[in-house]
């Protein structure tokens, strides 16, 4: 039995868990490797037109694995560890991918509620049992994986650059260098370091949200992470906010707008990614942002 794990989507947020969980289960695990043009094209072919770039990339990874493996693990994350939901397209990831005739091969499609450890364990065990994994192995691996997710230092907080910006957005855009066209590398060349939301603690995010004068408790994890972190980082002296978003992202159409209204005059910049990958335009916009930072520091 060869199980494929797509290196896309929420792999980037739960990488320590996924990698540690896959080790020593007694099954062969194959990771799909870095995103490339071929994967993107495959995704474009099989995915529904209206979907956003990350969904198409995810479908491409799944399609690639479906050709070489017996099964593809594509978890259906309904709620994150703090009880927020992510986005309907994440909850429906398996359905989006299944619609391109790979439905028989998808496994781990039970809903996962990461805020409830018992439920999570039960849902994962249900699938592992079918794969013929021993209960003890599963239990040990599960606990190990939880621990490594908790211990791992995730995210970026770079020192030693002239400017420091908050790189907001979604994990699958920020950490996939193919998708974001080497954004972080390009920023470094412009003497800009980045800090990401993983380096802001939950308490800081919550207190950032608490004074934002919201009418209702937000239910999107991306909103809490980006909006809460921005408000927390605002006090810590960052030079600007760079929001990496994908075209027609539903949650961002809301989040970006709310961020804009809470900036207190900080430079704010939205970069949109799509499958056209127009790099020249992307670079020009980045340079404009760097100029803006320079101009402000001179004043």
């Amino acid at each position, binding site marked *: 039995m060869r199980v494929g794990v797509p290196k896309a989507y929420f792999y980037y947020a739960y990488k320590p868990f996924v990698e540690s969980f896959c080790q020593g289960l007694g099954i062969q695990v194959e990771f799909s490797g870095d995103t490339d043009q071929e994967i993107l094209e495959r995704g474009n072919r099989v995915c529904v037109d*209206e979907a956003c770039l990350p969904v198409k990339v995810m479908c491409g990874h799944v399609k690639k694995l479906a050709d070489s493996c017996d099964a593809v693990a594509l978890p259906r994350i309904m709620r994150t560890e703090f009880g927020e939901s992510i*986005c*309907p397209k994440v*909850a*429906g990831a398996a359905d*989006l991918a299944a619609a391109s005739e790979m439905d028989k091969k998808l496994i781990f499609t039970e809903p996962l509620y990461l805020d409830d450890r018992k439920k999570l364990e039960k849902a994962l065990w249900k699938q592992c049992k079918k794969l013929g994994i021993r209960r003890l192995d599963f239990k040990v691996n599960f606990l190990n994986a939880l621990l490594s997710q908790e211990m791992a230092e995730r995210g970026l907080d770079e020192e030693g650059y002239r400017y420091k910006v908050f790189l907001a957005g979604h994990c699958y855009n920020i950490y996939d260098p193919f998708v974001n066209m080497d954004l972080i590398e390009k920023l470094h060349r412009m003497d800009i370091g980045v800090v990401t939301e993983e380096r802001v603690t939950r308490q800081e995010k919550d207190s950032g949200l608490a004074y934002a004068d919201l*009418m209702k408790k937000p239910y999107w994890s991306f909103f809490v992470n980006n909006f809460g972190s921005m408000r927390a980082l605002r006090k810590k002296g960052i030079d600007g906010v760079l929001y990496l978003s994908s075209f027609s992202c539903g949650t961002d159409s809301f989040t970006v707008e709310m961020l804009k209204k809470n900036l207190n005059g900080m430079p704010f910049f939205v970069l949109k990614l799509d499958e056209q990958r127009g790099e020249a335009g992307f670079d020009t916009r980045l340079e404009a942002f760097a100029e803006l930072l320079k101009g402000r520091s001179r004043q």
Partner: protein
Amino acid sequence: MKMTFPHLGPAYLAAALALKELGIPVVVPPANTGKTLEKGKSVSPEEMCLPFKFMAGNLIEAYDMGAQCVIMPATMGPCRLGEYGELLKQVLDQAGYAMEWILLDTPKAIGIKEWLRRLGTAGRESNATVLKAARVLTGSVQLMLSLDRLEAKIKEQAGYARHPGDCVKMLRSLRKELEASENLRAAGRTMAKYRRAVKMLPVNSRRRPVKILVTGEIYTSIEASANQNLEEQLMLMGCSVKRPVNISWWMAHTIRPSLPVPGRQRKRVYLPYSIGGYAKETVKEIRDSEEDGIIKIMPAGCMPEIVAKAVSNLIQEKEGKKILHLVFDEMQAAAGYETRIEAFVDMLERRRRVFLGN
């Protein structure tokens, strides 16, 4: 304090009557037009979905008519609809249309106590007793339910009517008369009148109309201005139209599950889990449909319906359903939609003649 609310199809008829009977001053925003959308677009972020832009337009128009307080139901996502209130308040405040907000979240999300408190704030200017309020509330819910039933009946009849235009006219005049009615009792009388009128409609019982199911995202389904009067177009082509997604359906799917009433849940093959919005229900309607064709509609960028589209493509392949996807946005290009709808109906008619022999 004058109250207002954004439009959602015929919901304003019952809501306005209920507020009037309770003695709460109410401003009903003018019906959705191109101008509403223009106004809404001027304050909305570019990538928000179509319903948001219409709603923003409604509230701006209501503000210009003197509304001071907005009452609006909300849910807990993960679809964008649940956050509409938050962003509407932000953009309207910024554009100089500051109003007070009462966000009626589901009781599950904010607790029944807070929910009742918010309902209380809404009714603070009314001097009606709790008993009367309850009576008015049930009365307006009943009006809504019977209106939905009656409209569904008329739309079904459109395929059999001797002149399909009669049904369209009837639907329009029904709404107009309800709008003009003084109170719930008068509205009830109007309903009875039209129920009789439907039975009197001249029909051609030998006709075998093409039956079409219209389903998809809830706002574009209910609000005819957001779907270019899709149903009227179909009715005028002599189709029998069924649209299960209406206000009663919304009440059954939103309010009932949040009350502690146990309900039967059947597990489904396609999209078995609720992923937000009403994608699961849309897929269920498509799967269970027995009509000749299905028109699935959504506003551009609707997150849950994109998943539903992917799944319905799978259903189309495996179960042989005929589905036309229509995506609506603020470019009101009517001719393009018309052409596609005509071609779809033609195809269904022809298919029926060739394969089914009638």
